[in-house]
């Protein structure tokens, strides 16, 4: 073997070119950019670059990862997102404030009503309108049911990723109970669009209270079953404890929120920190972990089920009678029967459905606690009937951003566990 000085360098450049062209045509990445992302050993071919996704059952949608592997150990993880980018912010800019409620369902499609609440809450803050107490309480009940819905999908798929298949079947069975309630109030199982600026589309139908009471009755036993399957399961503990650790300081610096942040021991929940929609009327606690590993994040979410049930119970007990939408006719349309005899109502109806209402010039940020973390909506208004800019602060995006740090040095099999534990929804990441 001849060893001239120039030869290895040529080999490195050649090999690197192959790496870039073969593994990475879609990233649209130059060699210089790739050098900053992976270690030199990957460019010589000593470490393997492996593509994972976007079509992969364990990436929870269309997430693509470029993994640099040394054997089975992950050296670097480079997420590639944007496969589900649908231009929701652009769409929302070109619709009136009421019309854009529909697109908010599609952001986090596992927790549509939480996105609805964040958006209508931001508009309500912008136009400064009050929401009747009954509407606020119903919003809280539906939001907590939505949170449970989101967590059920997380629990099922997360366990499925790690190898506990039966969990998936149980959680999707119980999810039907919740979807039936959503269908009852809004007419659809997933894309509810039930909230309106100033209140709700209509009052809840007969049978809603009984259906929610049924959930409260059934769920404690089901949760016990879930706990029996996983909590003390040695295989589960082996795969989750000490995996994907992120410290308190790092989690804050990455902008992580929700159970992923609380698993690291930071007590930040928007419902407690900056209460909205009368969350301060209810007693509940915020579960906080300590180690910041996959198991702690799992525990935080499981405890949240019980807290959600507690909030729903209180809201049902205190549910006041009364209207469910504001009587401010400049914002909310008049009831149908009024149009028959009131000229003014007819004009309001006509103006609202043809043009929409005008919002004062200004900018607001309003955030709620979604199942994934702090879901925020920023609206900048130019005084017209359509917003100048709508921006959705997606918790999944910020949580996913920390994935490279959490997965550094772990085994490739643990990557799927870590992705599951941060609970991403790609509709929200890409918007």
């Amino acid at each position, binding site marked *: 073997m001849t060893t001239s000085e120039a030869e290895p360098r040529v080999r490195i450049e050649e090999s690197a070119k192959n790496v870039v062209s073969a593994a990475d045509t879609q990233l649209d990445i130059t060699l210089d*950019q790739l050098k900053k992302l992976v270690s030199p050993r990957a460019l010589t071919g000593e470490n393997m670059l492996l593509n994972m996704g976007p079509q992969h059952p364990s990436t929870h949608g269309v997430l693509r990862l470029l993994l640099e592997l040394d054997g089975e150990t992950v050296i670097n993880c480079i997420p590639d997102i*944007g496969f589900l980018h649908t231009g929701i912010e652009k769409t929302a800019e070109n619709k009136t404030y009421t019309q854009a409620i529909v697109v908010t369902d599609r952001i986090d499609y596992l927790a549509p009503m939480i996105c609805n609440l964040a958006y209508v*809450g931001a508009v309500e803050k912008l136009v400064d309108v009050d929401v009747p107490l009954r509407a606020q309480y119903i919003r809280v009940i539906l939001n907590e049911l939505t949170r449970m819905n989101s967590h059920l999908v997380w629990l099922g798929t997360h366990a499925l990723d790690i190898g506990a298949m039966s969990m998936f079947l149980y959680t999707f069975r119980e999810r039907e109970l919740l979807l039936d309630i959503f269908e009852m109030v809004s007419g659809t199982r997933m894309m509810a669009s039930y909230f309106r600026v100033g209140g709700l589309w209509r009052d809840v139908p007969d049978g809603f209270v009984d259906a929610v009471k049924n959930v409260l009755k059934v769920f404690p036993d089901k949760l016990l079953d879930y706990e029996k399957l996983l909590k003390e399961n040695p295989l589960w503990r082996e795969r989750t404890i000490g995996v994907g650790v992120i410290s308190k300081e790092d989690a804050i610096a990455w902008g992580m929120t929700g159970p992923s942040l609380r698993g690291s021991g930071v007590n930040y929940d928007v419902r407690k920190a*900056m209460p909205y929609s009368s969350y301060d009327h209810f007693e509940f606690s915020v579960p906080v972990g300590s180690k910041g590993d996959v198991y702690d994040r799992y525990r935080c979410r499981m405890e949240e089920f019980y807290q959600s049930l507690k909030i729903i119970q209180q809201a049902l007990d205190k549910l006041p009678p009364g209207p469910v939408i504001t009587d401010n006719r400049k914002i909310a349309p008049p009831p149908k029967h009024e149009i028959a005899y009131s000229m003014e109502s007819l004009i309001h109806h006509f103006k609202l459905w043809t043009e929409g209402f005008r919002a004062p010039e*200004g*900018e607001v940020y309003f955030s709620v606690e979604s199942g994934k973390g702090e879901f925020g909506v920023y609206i900048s208004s130019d005084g017209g009937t359509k917003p100048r*800019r709508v921006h959705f602060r997606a918790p999944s995006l910020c949580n996913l951003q920390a994935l490279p740090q959490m997965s550094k040095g772990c085994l490739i099999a643990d990557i799927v566990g870590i992705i599951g534990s941060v609970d991403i929804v790609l509709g929200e990441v890409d918007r």
Partner: protein
Amino acid sequence: MEQTVTTANLDATVAALGDAVNDVRVFRDEVTLITTKGRVVEVLTHLRDAQHFDMLTDETCVDYLPKEPRFAILYQLYSTSRNIRVRVKVMLSEYDRSIPTAAGVWIAANWLEREIYDLFGINFENHPDLRRIMMPPGWEGHPLLKENPVKVEEVAFTFNRERVEADKPRAQE
């Protein structure tokens, strides 16, 4: 809807920043500090270190076309220890679409700035990894700029289906 936002003690924050803050606006109990492109990193570092705003909740951009300065970069900050929010705003001219990166202050700014770069074409100086993040590699332009229309392709109905289908872009061989 109301959301309890604490704005106490922000006067002290503004005073500590001195002339780095040009203007303070309060709308619906939300405080916005307006600063300049040259001093934004200094202001953000001060807010993080001395004022305990340890979390960058959000960073985004607004296109104010046809106004000039045309763009605004917004930093939404949150303090986990003080439980308060503040927003920092920097106006950018249409003819100078660049700003120093905040990725050195909060690591979370990395992807948020990549998103702004992709969707608005704002250049972040000294950003560690400035690449497109949402749009496909071959896409030209920046979709969230106001000059881009929301509808580019005509919607196909029965009366114009043949024409629309014929004009549709197809994948090249």
